[in-house]
């Protein structure tokens, strides 16, 4: 089954999209036309430059509306969701008790020079996020919150020393790809230390998607609006699966 959709302006399949951008050119009618051509080259048609104006010497700002001929088949999107296992805190605790029979050891940190701890705190702290309790509140988690600006080396050392089962890394600053750089450094170092397979490795932050996470070799990635219980469920299920596989191999 397929379900092909296009943007909807005021009529099914009209493909209407709004765009805005700045061009490093002085404003003129020609600048409007440059903006129009640029958007045409993106494969959009019926391009209307509804606003074009000078915002500084040598810079013009544009607002455009246009129709895209692109569409996307929603049914064809295979998105391994990290948020798939909906369980309550009590269910997760019970699940871990039953399947693993011991507490899970979790460490979380905001890595690199990033000091945005609100996100990782939202996941870890008792208080939690949007009424959903944080991991510290779970009976079956032992949780270490290492805080902000934690160097990757330090985090790996901690993981080894405290026999961490699940490692949570946060990155909020994304400028010049610093998030990807730090995430990559962490997973490579874990690999090099031979720790990677032993742990559930999870990343998060407002620009993180589960797709990005798997590209970077993480077990899961959580983006904006994540609730702690979604992360908790993922950790529980993932580690239980591993145990089952390991048991099967024996």
């Amino acid at each position, binding site marked *: 089954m397929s379900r092909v959709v296009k943007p909807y302006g005021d009529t099914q399949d009209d493909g*209407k999209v709004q765009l805005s951008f700045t061009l490093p050119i002085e404003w003129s009618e020609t600048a409007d036309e440059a903006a129009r051509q640029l958007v045409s080259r993106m494969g959009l048609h019926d391009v209307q430059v509804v606003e074009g104006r000078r915002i500084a010497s040598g810079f013009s700002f544009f607002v455009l509306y246009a129709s895209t001929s692109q569409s996307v088949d929603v049914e064809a999107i295979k998105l391994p969701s990290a948020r798939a296992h909906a369980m309550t805190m009590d269910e997760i605790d019970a699940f871990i008790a039953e399947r693993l029979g011991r507490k899970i050891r979790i460490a979380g940190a905001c890595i690199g020079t990033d000091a945005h701890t609100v996100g990782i705190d939202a996941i870890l702290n008792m208080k939690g996020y949007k009424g959903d309790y944080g991991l510290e509140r779970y009976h079956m988690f032992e949780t270490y919150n290492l805080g902000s600006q934690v160097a990757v080396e330090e985090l790996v050392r901690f993981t080894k020393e405290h026999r961490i089962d699940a490692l949570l890394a946060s990155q909020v600053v994304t400028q010049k790809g610093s998030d990807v750089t730090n995430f990559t450094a962490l997973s490579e170092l874990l690999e090099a230390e031979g720790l990677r397979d032993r742990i559930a490795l999870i990343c998060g932050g407002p620009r993180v998607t589960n797709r990005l996470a798997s590209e970077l070799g993480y077990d899961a990635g959580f983006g904006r609006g994540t609730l702690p219980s979604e992360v908790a469920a993922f950790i529980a299920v993932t580690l239980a699966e591993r145990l089952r596989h390991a048991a099967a191999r024996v």
Partner: protein
Amino acid sequence: MELRIDWTRVERCRTLASAIVEPVEEFIAAHSTVSVERAALRLLGVDGVTADEVPAPNAIVDSLSETGLQSGVALAFGKALAETGLDPAALGEALALGRYALEDFSQTPEQAARGALRPHVEAALTRIRAQREDRAARMARLPQLPPPLLYVIVASGNIYEDRTAAVASAEAGAQVIAVIRSTGQSLLDFVPFGPTTEGFGGTYATQANFRIMRGALDEISEKLGRYVMLTNYASGLCMPEIAVMAALERLDMLLNDSMYGILFRDINMKRTFVDQHFSRMLNAYSGIIINTGEDNYLTTADAVEQAPAVLASQFINEEFAHRAGLPDAQIGLGDAYEINPDIEDSFLNQLAQAQLARQIFPNAPLKYMPPTKHMTGDIFKGHLIDAMFNLTSVMTGQNIHLCGMLTEATHTPFLGDRALSLENARYIMNTARHLGEEITIKPGGAIEGRAAEVLEGCEQLMERVAAMGLMNAIDAALFADVSRAPEGGRGYEGVFARAADYFNPFEDALRSAVAPVAS
């Protein structure tokens, strides 16, 4: 944030409004129009189109001789009813298809006609009352969100896309849905028929379209647990007929201005005055809130200069409405946020104007129109101008709030635009919900000064209008800088003097049901 107002001026304006409207009312009482007559037929149940797509009410009214028309179509139609024994719908069809002609029955006595009509007139009024009661019951059961009523337009040209848009808007918080008409419809001297999917800049107002929309909104109202209102446009060449359709299909509001068609569509003034009166009587009886069109003064002319004219028009619209039996609670007087946003302290002037209207018309559900003229393709700035409009509305307690669109200068709203617009209104009105109550206006300051200036200007204008008479004043371009001659404009040929035996059973019934209101 009360303004201190010179109430003697306000009283003087009301006296002037009465003096201005009185002679026009005399003209109205002595005349009828083809659209009033067609409306009577529609109320009786005549509908459908001829083989050439001419609506049956038009075909029938047009088939009357001049003297036949002057007695009112009801009389001729009543005679045919009496003779044929058909019900009005069937008779209408037969007449439209040319199977009968009204003149065939000209010898039938008037009494027989009246007798044949009576049950159908009763039935029509009963249907309208039933819709009114149905609305009241639904509104009681499905209460609305805190005021103002957020109002958005749908205008894709296709009634089915409009339906999708309307339902989505209701879910996103809209309390009133207006289906904007296609360009040009107000100049058609007939109402199109059936569901329509092709319009330009709007969707045709047809009874079928009304029904499709009402059905969809009733359904979503139940789902949301709050009654979502429906509105459309009456003003134009077919005000009375659209008022009939709206009554029958349970629209909740209707754009209905006593002078809009004259000034902004070059429709003949006599035609408009007669039409607005009959349509407003119907609106009154249907429990429909009218919305007047003062905002239109500001889309072409300067909003600061025109403010007195807007207020004068509000007084005049109020007076015409009262005379047609509309109580204050059904008079949605218009105003708009159209002062150039780049003028220093323009927000203060907007506040002054909105608060002035609020205090002068305390019981009218004021309808506040968004910025349009100064909106440009800069959707980001546009969204901000809309925000200040939203703030003014909540501060001054407006009732019907037409949400501005960030894409106003670009296209009739996209589905996503409406969602952003509703979010804008909700955010601003919530974050500043009680601001108006928590502040007072500096006595004698700039805001009060501006309000006083507008009221004074209004009084002066109305003195001039009263002195020369409304029709001459319009001729002299005293409103909106537009000059219209009393016999000029579209649709004048459709106005006629009533004969002594003129008969319109609905007018009679409505007149006794909806008594004129003392201003």
